[in-house]
């Protein structure tokens, strides 16, 4: 596994977004790619430098910009995600030659929202998901398929496996942990659980 199998994921990490992030991570792992997310970075390290390091290490970048607008009146918008998207696009444009083959997927909640407020990103791969995990899985899977010459596992297989996985993970979790903490599971733990489940699940003939 190396640069060509690495995926930088730039998205919100709050509880509300967790169902979408989990669906996205499941898809990336099911397709045998390795996710890189900024939440796993040690707090002792400088976050910005680590994000740049992730961008340098990953051929693929998935950027969900659906949460940059204010949730409540008086809130300030957050622009970390568009900033990181800009770094990723910039690295492909101006970075060293290895980065020229970068592939970038931009996700948004509502169709054409970002083309209205950030029209310069027109021409990129932009898909909307309406806040639905199944659409995230389909978008991410289809995008990998479009950027890959070899066979990519079909959407229905990933989606069905994801449903089975969620039931197993939840049932297993609530035996030992309080049920209401399920959505607060840290991303690093979720990735480890997902990876081991997928590895075993794929080892049996379906």
């Amino acid at each position, binding site marked *: 596994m190396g640069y060509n199998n690495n995926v930088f994921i730039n998205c919100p990490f709050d509880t509300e977004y967790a169902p979408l992030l989990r669906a996205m991570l499941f898809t990336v792992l099911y397709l045998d790619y390795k996710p890189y997310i900024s939440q796993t970075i040690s707090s002792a390290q400088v976050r910005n430098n680590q994000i740049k390091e992730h961008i340098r290490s990953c051929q693929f970048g998935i950027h969900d910009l659906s949460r940059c607008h204010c949730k409540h009146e008086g809130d300030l918008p957050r622009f970390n995600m568009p900033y990181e998207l800009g770094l990723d696009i910039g690295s492909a444009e101006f970075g060293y030659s290895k980065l020229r083959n970068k592939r970038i997927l931009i996700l948004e909640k509502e169709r054409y929202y970002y083309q209205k407020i950030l029209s310069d990103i027109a021409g990129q791969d932009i898909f909307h998901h309406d806040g*639905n995990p199944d659409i995230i899985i389909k978008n991410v899977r289809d995008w990998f398929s479009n950027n890959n010459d070899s066979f990519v596992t079909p959407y229905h297989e990933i*989606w069905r496996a994801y449903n089975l996985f969620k*039931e197993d993970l939840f049932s297993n979790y609530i035996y030992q942990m309080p049920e209401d903490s399920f959505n607060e599971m*840290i991303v690093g*733990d979720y990735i480890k*659980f997902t990876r*081991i489940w997928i590895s075993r699940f794929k080892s049996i003939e379906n």
Partner: protein
Amino acid sequence: MKPKSIYTKKLAESLAAMATERKKNKYHIIVELGKWCVVPDGKIRARRICKTEEEAISFAQAIIADNTGEVIVHTNSGDVKHRIYLNNQ
């Protein structure tokens, strides 16, 4: 407060065991692009794709041998919406 890691080898091993387990009389009703699929536990291939949730549940209940088993109905986000237990006794 920063959430703590809950990952343990024991949790991971029990989850891994569940990934390979196939309960014979257990079916999942999975919403997929506006249709309802009846999928046997631990499998990918659907036994039937139905137009409605009710039709899918009825089909799953009908194929459960000895009328003893479980039907798990999933939401359109993949969570478990409810479980239907069948018990012959």
